[in-house]
Every structure is written in structure tokens, then in C-alpha cells.
């Protein structure tokens, strides 16, 4: 059943596959992002309570959910690297970590910018904000561990173990933070939740969410290609590629 995946254990095949994949991803990201963001920022109706400032929602929510999604895919890559010893899975996890950290930071910063007009403060110790902040710490830990090793193969394995420990801990941290929040202070302003949206607000959201997802795909794909080249720099096929590009 999984046999069609077998050729992609070879770095060269995967590299050429990303070559083919990349233009599609770029086109889709450009299409969805331009439609989604223009629609969301210019044409979607303003919120009756929050006015125009709610439009940051169209960046904030995709970034927040992608930050978690990237961690999960990183964990899947780490697991397959540890179980099946796939070196490319290590490379993909290494490619994903900084992107995930960046999107977590975007979610936090846009959240703070949204919180200032809505709640009157940049930061509150809300359960969601806190667990997002901790997610950022977990990402930074994985990246720091990855950078601390000279040998990239070892770095990938070590970071993989940490990613898996983290993914077990994320739900525990999430629930403990939820609990902590309800214990320490009643929900004062955090009752923001997800408003049941009208359709003309929902559609631009779907477009911008897909756009950001494809954008993540593009960035990860680019970083993944670089990782493959960096890790296989001694191989003849990489040298051929380099020579070709130099001759051009």
C-alpha cells in the first residue's frame, strides 16, 4: 500500500519531486492569499462590535492553527525518522521547526495587537495565550537543540526525541493551563471564543486560511530542498546540479 512512497527515500528523487511541486504551491499560495486577504481586509463587512480591528482575525487565526499543525507534522516526521530511520524525515523536521516558531510568534504578536484595542491590554494571562507562548518555548527548544549539535544526523535524532516528548506534553500543558486559568481568575475578558460567523465573513477566512497553508507549504518546501542539498553536498548528483547552475 505504501510502496509508492518508497522511491522518495532517495534524496535525489525527492529533490526533483519538490522541483515539480514548488511552482504549484507558489501559484496556489499567491492565488488564495491575494483573494483571501483583499477580500478580508477590504470587502468583508466590519464586525458590529469590534469594527475594523477584527480584521486581524484573518491573519491571527490561520497563524495560530498553523503553528499547532506544524508542530504535529514535525512530530510525525520525527516519529517516522526514529521508527523507520528515514533521514529525509529528519531534514523535513529541521525545515519545519523555524517556520513553526515564526508562525507561533506571528500568532502571539497579532494576538497582542488585537488584544490592545479589544481588551485594553497587550497581554493577559489567558489560557490560550499562555499555551501558545509555551508552544513557542517548545519550538525554540527544538531549534536550539538542533543548532547545538555539529553532526546534523545526530541533531535530527536528538531534536526528534525532544519533539516527541513535547507532543506528549502539549495536551497536558494545554489542559493544566486551562485549569490554572479557571482557578486563579474567573474568565473576565477571555470569553472571546469563536463567534459564529456570518458567511460573508467566513468565506474570506477560508481563502486566507488556505492561502497561509499553501504559503507554509512553499516555505517548508524551499527550506526542505536546502536541507537536502546541504546534507548531500558530497553526492555526485548535487555536484552536477551545482555545475549546471554555474555553467548557466
Amino acid at each position, binding site marked *: 500500500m505504501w510502496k509508492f512512497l518508497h522511491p522518495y527515500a532517495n534524496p535525489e528523487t525527492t529533490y526533483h519531486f519538490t522541483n515539480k511541486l514548488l511552482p504549484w504551491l507558489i501559484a496556489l499560495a499567491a492565488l488564495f492569499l491575494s483573494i483571501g486577504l483583499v477580500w478580508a481586509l477590504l470587502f468583508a463587512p466590519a464586525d458590529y462590535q469590534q469594527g475594523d480591528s477584527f480584521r486581524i482575525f484573518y491573519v491571527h487565526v490561520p497563524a495560530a492553527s498553523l503553528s499547532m499543525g506544524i508542530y504535529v507534522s514535525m512530530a510525525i516526521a520525527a516519529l517516522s525518522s*526514529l521508527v523507520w530511520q528515514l533521514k529525509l524525515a529528519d531534514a523535513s523536521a529541521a525545515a519545519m521547526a523555524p517556520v513553526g516558531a515564526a508562525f507561533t510568534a506571528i500568532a502571539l504578536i497579532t494576538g497582542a495587537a488585537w488584544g490592545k484595542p479589544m481588551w485594553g491590554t497587550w497581554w493577559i494571562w489567558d489560557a490560550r495565550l499562555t499555551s501558545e507562548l*509555551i508552544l513557542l*518555548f*517548545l519550538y*525554540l*527548544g527544538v531549534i*536550539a*537543540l538542533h543548532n*547545538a*549539535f555539529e*553532526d546534523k544526523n*545526530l541533531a535530527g*535524532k*536528538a531534536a526528534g*526525541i*525532544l519533539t*516527541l*516528548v*513535547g507532543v*506528549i*506534553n502539549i495536551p*497536558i*500543558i494545554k489542559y*493544566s*493551563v486551562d*485549569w*490554572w486559568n479557571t*482557578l486563579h481568575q474567573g474568565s473576565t475578558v477571555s470569553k472571546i471564543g469563536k463567534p459564529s460567523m456570518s458567511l460573508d465573513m467566513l468565506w474570506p477566512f477560508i481563502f486566507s486560511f488556505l492561502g497561509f497553508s499553501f504559503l507554509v507549504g512553499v516555505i517548508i518546501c524551499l527550506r526542505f530542498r536546502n536541507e537536502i542539498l546541504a546534507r548531500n553536498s558530497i553526492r555526485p548528483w548535487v555536484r552536477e546540479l551545482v555545475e549546471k547552475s554555474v555553467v548557466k
Partner: protein
Amino acid sequence: MTLPAQSEQLPTQTTQTSAQLSYRHAFMLVLKRDLTIAMRHKDDIINPLLFFVIVITLFPLGIGPEAKTLSRIAPGIIWVAALLATLLSLDRLFKSDHLDGSLEQMLLSPHPIFILVLAKIFAHWLITGLPLILIAPLLAVLLHLDKNSYTALLLTLLLGTPVLSLLGAIGVALTVGIKKGGVLLSLLILPLYIPVLIFATSAIDTAALGLPYSGQLAIIAALFFGSLTLAPFAVGAALKVSTN
């Protein structure tokens, strides 16, 4: 098909029994060895403890001596100081063994790495966690901790500090091969300590109000047993990566 092979193996096994150790024996040997080493380097036991005491005395100096404020923040201070003291002491869990090569010998030995790692972590807890628990009530007096909370403080420390040792061991195992692992270790481990901190302090707070805190204790106990069963596997895998 497999039977003859097994019967061939049997005599070699019986000849080796004198050299082979049961799990319990291996566990006790590693534990005894680590405790002996710790007893010969008493600084390693005393310094984290001193750190714990000094950090806790700093807080009243920084915040002010009012008993009311202090008793309100005492659980958090004691627990955060305990986290930091544990973090400080984690470094020697595998470091010296890695440097003199005995860690690699342990990994090469026929015993499951789970048992050996568990023994080392248990020794670490006996050396750092237990003194912390013993000295904590004294510091709680200094911080005017509520009278009702002492049992809760001791119980949370008793269940929580092993979790700190177990989770910390994962971080140490990952960073043992790196030269400047100390700062990195805190970055890796402290986020994982958050649930223990939250439930322990909330148990102590609840106890101060005279309410039952068995729920929080049960969750810390669940964290303890979860990490007891899972962490040694992660430590073993991490040690194999670190020693390469």
C-alpha cells in the same frame, strides 16, 4: 525449528549466570554506585540545597516582609525555587559518567537500559529531591505559609520532585554530549515542568483554604506514574544518540 537453537543456547547461559545479574541486582548496583559517588562529593548534594535556601530568602527581601503577601506567594516561590534547584543539580546526572566513559559501558551492557537509567534517576532523586523535601517545611515557616498547607506542600513535593528528576533526565540525556549544555538544558526542560508547577501550587493554595486537594494530588501522581513508565525510554533513546 527454534527448539534446538534454544537448547544450544542454554548451556552457555548457565555458565554465564555468575556474570549475569538479575534486574533487581543491576538496579541496586547502579543505585549504590551513584550514591557512593555522591557521598564522596558532598558539595554536589549541598550546593543545590544552598541555592534553594538562598533563592527563597531573596524573595522576602525583594518583595517586602509583610506576612500576608508572603503567605500568599509562598507555594509558588517554594516550587519555582525547587524547579531551579533541580535544574541546577541535573547536570551531574550523566555528565561525569559520559566523560569517563562509564556511560557507554552501561549502554553496552546486556541489561536493559530502562533499569539502569531508572536506578540513576532514583539515585538523583535521593540526592537532590529528598533533602529538598526535608528542608522545605523550614523555609515554609520563613515564608509564613498557611498552617493548613504543610501536609499539602510535603505531599506535592514528594510526588512532584520525582517527576522533575525523570523529565529532567530526558533533557540531560539529550544535552550530555554538547559542551555548553547548561543553558540549553533549562530551555528544553522548564516548559515541560509547567504542569507540575501548576498542579502543585494549586494543591497548596486549595489546602490553605481548607478545601480538599486530592484531585490535584491525583493528577500529580498520574504525571509521576506516566513519566516513570515513559521517561526512561526517552532517556535511553537520547543517551544512544548522545553517545553515538
